Every structure is written in structure tokens, then in C-alpha cells.
């Protein structure tokens, strides 16, 4: 079964920000997208050539490839509200 959410997290080594971002991401996904997501963690220190493809500047960056549109969320993902809006899980509440 294909996952509804394909997420990619770009990190550069095991920095505190990267670890925090990955933990946060896992937590949100378990809460809101249980069973319909896949997370791919890419360490740019290992694969620097991959940074170009997704236009990665900042670290850590979360890229939502599917569903469209492609969105990028940068930072340690500490703000749950913004992450969920960014992933189109929750619409922005005004």
C-alpha cells in the first residue's frame, strides 16, 4: 500500500537540531498520520550531492513530496501548529 505522505528529512550529522527535528516529526506523524506516512532521513554529510535536488539550504529541512504541493519546513519543527499547517494536515486557523 502506498503511503499518503512521503516525507524527507534532510539533516547534516547528528546535531541537536537534527535529532530534535526527527523526534518532533515522528511524534506528530504518530499522532496525526498513523500508518499513512513514510519518513526518509537523508544525511547530507554522507550524500552531499542530494542537496541540489530538493534545493536544500537550511538544515534541518523537512520536505513533503507527496501529496502535492511540495512544501518545505525548515527548523527543528518545535512549533507543532506550523508543522501541521505546513504538512496540510491542518488548515490555518485564523
Amino acid at each position: 500500500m502506498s503511503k499518503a505522505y512521503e516525507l524527507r528529512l534532510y539533516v547534516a550529522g547528528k546535531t541537536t537540531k537534527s535529532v530534535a527535528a526527527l523526534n518532533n516529526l515522528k511524534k506528530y506523524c504518530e499522532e496525526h498520520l498513523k500508518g499513512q506516512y513514510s519518513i526518509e532521513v537523508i544525511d547530507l554529510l554522507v550524500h552531499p550531492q542530494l542537496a541540489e535536488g530538493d534545493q536544500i539550504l537550511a538544515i534541518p529541512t523537512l520536505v513533503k513530496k507527496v501529496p502535492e504541493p511540495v512544501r518545505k519546513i525548515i527548523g527543528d519543527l518545535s512549533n507543532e501548529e506550523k508543522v501541521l499547517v505546513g504538512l496540510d494536515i491542518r488548515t490555518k486557523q485564523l
Partner: protein
Amino acid sequence: MPSKKASSTSKQLSHELPKTPTGIIGLDEITVGGLPTGRPTLVCGSAGCGKTLLSLEFIVRGAQEYNEPGVFIAFEEKADELATNVASLGFDLQKLQDQKKIKIDYIHIDRSEIEETGEYDLEGLFIRLNYAIDSIGAKRVVLDTIENLFSGLTNQAILRAELRRLFQFLKDKGVTAIITGERGEKTLTRQGLEEYVSDCVILLDHRIINQISTRRLRIVKYRGTLHGTNEYPFLIDEDGISVLPVTSLKLNKAVSSDRFSSGIPALDKMLSKGGFYRGSSILVSGTAGTGKTSVAASFCNEACNRGEKCMFFAFEESPAQIIRNMRSIGMDLQQHVDSGLLQFYASRPTLYGLEMHLVAIHKAIRRFKPQVVVLDPITNLITVGSVSDVKSMLVRLIDFLQEEQITVMFTALSLNTVVNEQTDEGVSSLVDAWLMIRDIEMNGERNRGLYIMKSRGMKHSNQVREFVISDNGLDLIDVYLGPDGILTGSAREAQMLLEETGQVLQTHAVGVKDRELLRKRKVLESKIESLRSEFESTEEELNKAYVENAIKKEVLEQNRQKLTTLRGKNISDADSEDEIKKTKKKK
């Protein structure tokens, strides 16, 4: 920071700052060698002033001419857009990329795609940069325009901290970098990039004065080295950027004492030793229609006939027009064009600013390497600049030409209303020789008088010559100096005819007088003859009287004797008879 600055300063003092040549014409001269090696340089300027082109040329020339691979990180344009934009300059980016000499990386930041939550850093950018540099062993890096980061990301504090880290990273990598930045309102760059880059800052500028645009370049600072401080005009054309490091400050150029002909034999005769010095500058000035262009063209023609390369900058007429016009006075310039000795460079003065003209002239001369250059006319350049601008441009042009030992002839239009001759674009003091052609208006016709106002370093005639343009070319004729002053044109012809007539008349008059003298002599002689015969007759007359007298006297004597004898017979007839006989016998 202070400790680092101090150490770098001492390092610069101990030895010459290493520099990386840019390969951009002129820029390396201004910077005395190039950009600081292993350090970032900031190139800033407003939109459309050529920042991207300058930095791209730095990369391309580095790859092509100095064998230094380069990375171009584009934040504004995609790699293929860039390639298209610079293809017109003859830069084949794709080929260079395939040869692994350059790498173009496009970094796209779209704010709508990005959400920011919490802490982050730009390690991704560093990794990409590092990867790009290492993959081709780059020595040169361009970040164009890094300020785009500020529009894509909102956390300024992080950005600034990361930028500082970025510049340090570039220094650590030992790459020579160019960072471009938009010009800000009061600061050099909108985001104050100049506070991060402290080694070298170049400011580009694009100004419009009197509707004519001029690009200029200035080195705001360049730590630890000499550099030109002026604003230098630069040109973007089919060969990329050329900056003009205009004036050399020293007056120590080599001089030549070679001379060569001006193309007008009579003019050469007015100069001692027959012509102008090689590498000198000659100004031909005169009012409209005095034949300045013809003088210039004949100068060119002569140079080509000697087999020298000649470049004709025409600011007024098209090459075809000049060739046609010169053919009418028996000069075939087309053959020289065909043989490649003569090249025309025609452009409208208003095409670009004065400085641009200078740059363009420079480029053209550098490419063609002529020995003789003609500018016809410099006065037309006034339309794009003030007199003082033109003067300063010409100073630099003459300077450059003399450095290259190129002989130059300018023509300048002087207006009839300008009384003071010394103000001819103010260049008269700069040139080595100055020919002036003047209209001499007399008896309802206009004639041209040519004289040499000055000619440095040689004797020259101070006489006004009549300048004649005929089907066979140009010639100078001695003007007629008569009792009424200088006569030219038909007045001169008339005077000469008049003199001829006088001559004939005089010859005739002399003949008449001669004959009269002859006649008088004849009369005199005949008079003498008649007097003589008169005298003879008088003499005869007188003689006759004298003889008669003598005879009479004798006869009287005889008679008296006879009488005496007759009387004496009485006394001694015989004696007296004898005496008488004796007397008679004696007689």
C-alpha cells in the same frame, strides 16, 4: 576578530598580497593584478549594472585563461537562463561545464514553499557549496546574489550569523570569491554585506547623464594594496566587459624621431625634414567645408601606401560616404580597405557616452593595432559631453596613443564666431602639431588658407599657403604677396595675369624706345654729315680767298718789281734785270 585582522595585516606587510587575475580587460590594471586570492570580494551596484556579468566573466576567464575551475552559485537565474544570457558574449557555459571547468549551481528559494519552525542553520548551503567546490577543485567562487536569502528566509539573526560563517568558510576553503549585492539606499548593499566582506569592495554604477548612459566602476576599498581610486568607465559588448584604466599618471613615454609624410608633399616641405614625427598627435582645425576630412583622408591614404595599418574613426560620415567623397579628389581608399590596411570605425556620437567612446576606441585600436589613427571630427563628440569632458577624454586618448606610439590626427570644426583660436576644444595645448585651415574671403569668393600653428620639435614655415583641392588631390600653393597684401584664388590668378601683361607691354615699350634712339642717332649722324660738308665748303671758300690773296699779293709784288725794275733801268738796268730774273727764277 581584532586578533585576526592584526595577523592578516602583518602578513600583508611581510610580503605582497597574492592576487588572482580576473582576465577582464582593464580590471586587472586598476587592481594592480587582480582580486585578493583566497578572499571574498564584494561587487555591488544597482539593478542592471553588470554585476552578474562581471562575476560570470571572472569565472569563465579563470577557467579558460588561467586554468582555475570555478563555481557559480546563482540565486537569481537558472543555469540555462544564464547560459543563454551570456551565449551572446561567446561564453559556452555548457561546454565548460561538460569539461568540469566550471559548475553552475542554481539555488532556488521560494518563500511560499517554506515554513520556518524553530532553530535552523544553513548547513545545507555550506554542504552544497563545499560539494560543488570539491567536485571540480574550484579556485574561484561566485555567489550571485546572496541577498536573495533575505527575501526567502525571515530569521535575520540566523541569516547574519550564517553569513559571517559563510565568509569564514570561503576563506578557509582558500577560494577567491565574488559576492554580489544590490545597492542599498544609504549603504553599499541593501543588507549591509559590506560589513562581512572587508578585503575588497567594487562598486558598479550605471548613470544616465543627458540621456546617455555610462557604466562606471570604482574600487571602494582594497585592503593591503595599491589600487586605482577613480571611477572608471566600462563597456559591455560582444567580448564581455572592458574597463578602461584611463590615464597613466606619468609623463614618461618613449618618443620617436622618425618622420613621415603627411600625404601632401607641399605640406611636408613646410615642415623641416619633411613630415610629422611618428607617434605625435596632429590637430587639423578649420571652419566648415575647409577640407579637414580630405586632409585626414590623405594622411590615411599615405600611411596605407607606405604599408602601415590605419584606422579611421568617423563620427560624422559613413565609411562608404567617405570613400566616395575621397574618390572625387583622386584618392582610392577602397583598395586599402580591401587589402586590410585601412579600417573604418563609424559610430554616432550619441550612441553612447564619451567615456564609452573612449573605451570603444581603445578596444578597436587594441584589436586592430594600427600605426596611424584618425578621428574625424572630435568636435562632434561635444554633443554628448561638455567641452571639459571632451578635453579630459582626449587627454586620455592621446595619452594612450602616445604610449602605443600611434600617430593620431584629429580634425576639429571651429566655428566662425569663435574669435579666440586657443579654445579649440582645449586640445591645442595637448597636440604636437596643429594645422589650421581658414577661409579667406575676398572679392566675392572663398579660398582656403592653410598654415601651421605649431609643430613641436621642428622648424616649420610661418607662411600662409593656399590650400587647393583639385581632381588630383590636395596641394598647397604659395600665396601671392602683392602690394595690396595677400591674394588668393582668382585674385591671385588675376594678379599673375596682370603682371604678365605688364611684362609684355614693357617689352614693347623698350622696343619702341630703342628704335627711336636708332632714329635719333641717324638724324644726328646725318646732321654731322651736313655740318661737315658745310664746313668743307666754308673751308674751301676760305682757302680760295686765301689763295686769291696770295696770288694777288704775288701779282702785286711782281707788278711792283716790274715797276721798280722799270725805274731802276736807268741806273743799272742790267743788274736789276738780272735781279728780276733771279727773283722770277726763285719763284
